[in-house]
């Protein structure tokens, strides 16, 4: 029993359309088949949600599954939990498994919060005694002490989700499957959920976690599987997986931006690379938020460009763009000959919270006002400050000395009143 979960070249197909909901449909379908019209439709309407996917998770490890919508992530979880059965391959699950595929799937609006905890707990495979023992913890975790005897139909969506997750978080299975349920609730609750998952993994639970929140996945998981159109696109460490995923998904959108398919134009500029350099000229993978950084872009131009501008966009691994720096907005354009050239952006610091950041390069021809080259968000840089700051920014700052304040001054009065 070496592994907790083995997904052995698993395939799963679905039929699209042609599902008979009533007997009348069945009769007409069979008639059409008799007349020889249905056979072709059968194969055309098969859709492979997963194709030959292989992975293993050792006990006590955590696996993140990422991929674009429709990649087969949820299907994989449903196969693991036994809701669906695979059409090819083999699935091995060793241990008691609990799946959080939808928070509160087992809840009923007419029952009170308390009754729902028992019901939901039973749905998750807990015994009544187990639930009774953990009841106080569950209620405290949900933060719904005041409303626990109110029917759940009067709860807000967020409250329902909190109640559902609170119950689920207290199941202690050997293997826990979690499907994007953590996107509900406020920031504080999301944080608590993440903590709870980390706790479970530390306690020896095997975790399989589907998410779109890459940053969270990176914090929680040991390994990552990237799925794309039902196929295994990558398997490895979260950092590499994220880069792989982002470059793969962004590529698709990126190409449209600069290769003009209609006129058949080639990209004028190829971005050969982007290096991050420290003050001493050394290539940097990981920098302190307060040290100067140079981003050096290497380009190959297929033809001379009279008025070249370069933009570097940086986004956080988890999501949105937060920094866009274009040479043209500072009035800098270059007159560039054909061939390979290099241009650098100097930053006095990258004063942001610890984490992984990804950069994209865009190259413009300002005279024609067209984009002549673009890369996906694939140049990653790690910012690490050794846990000194929390929050989104890390700015240079200083504190004054402590000065005693004489009594009778305003500040003292206010402080006294408080």
């Amino acid at each position: 029993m070496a592994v907790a979960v083995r997904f052995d070249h698993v395939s799963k197909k679905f039929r699209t359309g042609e599902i008979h909901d009533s007997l009348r449909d069945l009769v007409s379908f069979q008639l059409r088949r008799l007349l020889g019209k249905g056979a072709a439709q059968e194969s055309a309407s098969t859709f492979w949600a997963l194709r030959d996917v292989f992975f293993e998770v050792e006990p006590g490890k955590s696996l993140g599954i990422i991929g674009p919508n429709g990649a087969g992530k949820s299907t994989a979880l449903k196969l693991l939990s036994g809701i669906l059965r695979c059409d090819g391959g083999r699935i091995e699950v060793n241990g008691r498994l609990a799946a959080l595929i939808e928070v509160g799937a087992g809840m009923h609006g007419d029952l009170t919060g308390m009754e729902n905890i028992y019901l939901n707990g039973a749905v998750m495979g807990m015994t009544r005694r187990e639930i009774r023992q953990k009841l106080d913890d569950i209620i405290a975790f949900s933060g719904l002490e005041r409303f626990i005897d109110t029917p759940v139909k009067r709860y807000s969506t967020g409250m329902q989700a909190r109640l559902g997750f609170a119950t689920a978080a207290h199941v202690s299975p050997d293997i826990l499957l979690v499907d994007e349920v953590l996107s509900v609730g406020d920031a504080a609750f999301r944080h608590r959920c993440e903590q709870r998952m980390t706790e479970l993994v530390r306690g020896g639970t095997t975790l399989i976690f589907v998410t779109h929140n890459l940053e969270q996945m990176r914090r929680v998981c040991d390994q990552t599987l990237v799925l794309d159109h039902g196929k295994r696109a990558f398997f490895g460490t979260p950092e590499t997986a994220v880069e792989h995923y982002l470059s793969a998904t962004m590529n698709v959108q990126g190409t449209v931006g600069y290769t003009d398919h209609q006129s058949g134009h080639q990209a004028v500029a190829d971005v050969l690379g982007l290096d991050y350099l420290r003050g001493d000229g050394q290539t940097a993978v990981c920098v302190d938020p307060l040290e100067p950084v140079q981003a050096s872009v290497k380009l190959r131009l297929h033809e001379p460009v009279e008025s070249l501008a370069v933009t570097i966009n940086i986004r956080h691994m988890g999501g949105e763009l937060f920094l866009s720096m274009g040479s043209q907005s500072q009035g800098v354009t270059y007159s560039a000959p054909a061939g390979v050239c290099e241009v650098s952006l100097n930053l006095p610091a990258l004063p942001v919270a610890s984490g992984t950041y990804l950069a994209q390069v865009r190259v413009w021809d300002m005279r024609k006002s067209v984009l002549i080259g673009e890369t996906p968000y694939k140049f990653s840089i790690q910012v690490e400050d050794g846990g000194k700051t929390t929050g989104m920014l890390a700015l240079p700052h200083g504190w004054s000395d402590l000065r005693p304040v004489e009594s009778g001054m305003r500040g003292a009065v206010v402080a006294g009143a408080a």
Partner: protein
Amino acid sequence: MHSVACGSSALHELVRYRQLLVSLMWRDIRVRYKQSVLGMAWAIVMPLAMMLIFTFVFTRAVKVVGGMNLQMPYPLFAYIGLVPWAFFSTGLNGAVSSLVANRNLVTKVYFPREVFPLSSIGSAFADFCVAGTVLVALIAYFHTTTSWDFRPQPSLLFVPVVLFFQIMLTCGLGMLLAMANLFYRDVRQLFNVLIQLWMFLTCVVYPIPNDGSFWGVVVVCNPMTPIIKAYRDCIILGEIPHGGAFWTACGCSALIFFLGWYCFRKMSYRFAECI
């Protein structure tokens, strides 16, 4: 490891999830009587009301009961028929739509799918138990107010056996119907019509015609008829059901139960994608 086998592993799995079965049963009961003034009392009021209606129809309006040898007051006769029938029909009624109504759970959580029809039948069984207690009061009432005499007989101990076979029949049919309705929603509509017809083909409110006519044969071929007759025999007449009809019905029930369960297990892996 997941398996679709039937038999001991299926039973084992069901035992593992017994608490869920109880919880869902409890949910069905709670939800049915939520926001109602009479609440659980409806389980008594319904068969009593039906009893009064049939008593009125058969003894006042059409007066057909006079010629029948019931060996007990007609209201009692009707009540003993109506309570098990109500268990059977409401149990099946819940079971038919149980999978479809719990679509959310079927597609999102894994546990043995039998739990859905079985818990619906279980909640109907709770009503049956409540309504059954009223029978004691009814017997006492007719014993004291009319010339009819009730003597408790040892055959009363046979009632659980009858009940057991009725439960088997209900569960077997419940699983088959729930599954069929998942694939074809027409089943629910058909069921609503057929269950009405079935009630009149079962001697719920009148005795089995024993004139050997075609009608009598149809009535006896239906496993619910000997079962309901057996309740009356055991409770009131002090007879243990004898003869082939009852044991054939029991065999039928057991067969339907295992057949239903087997098919249900066989098909359950397709439920989530076909619902």
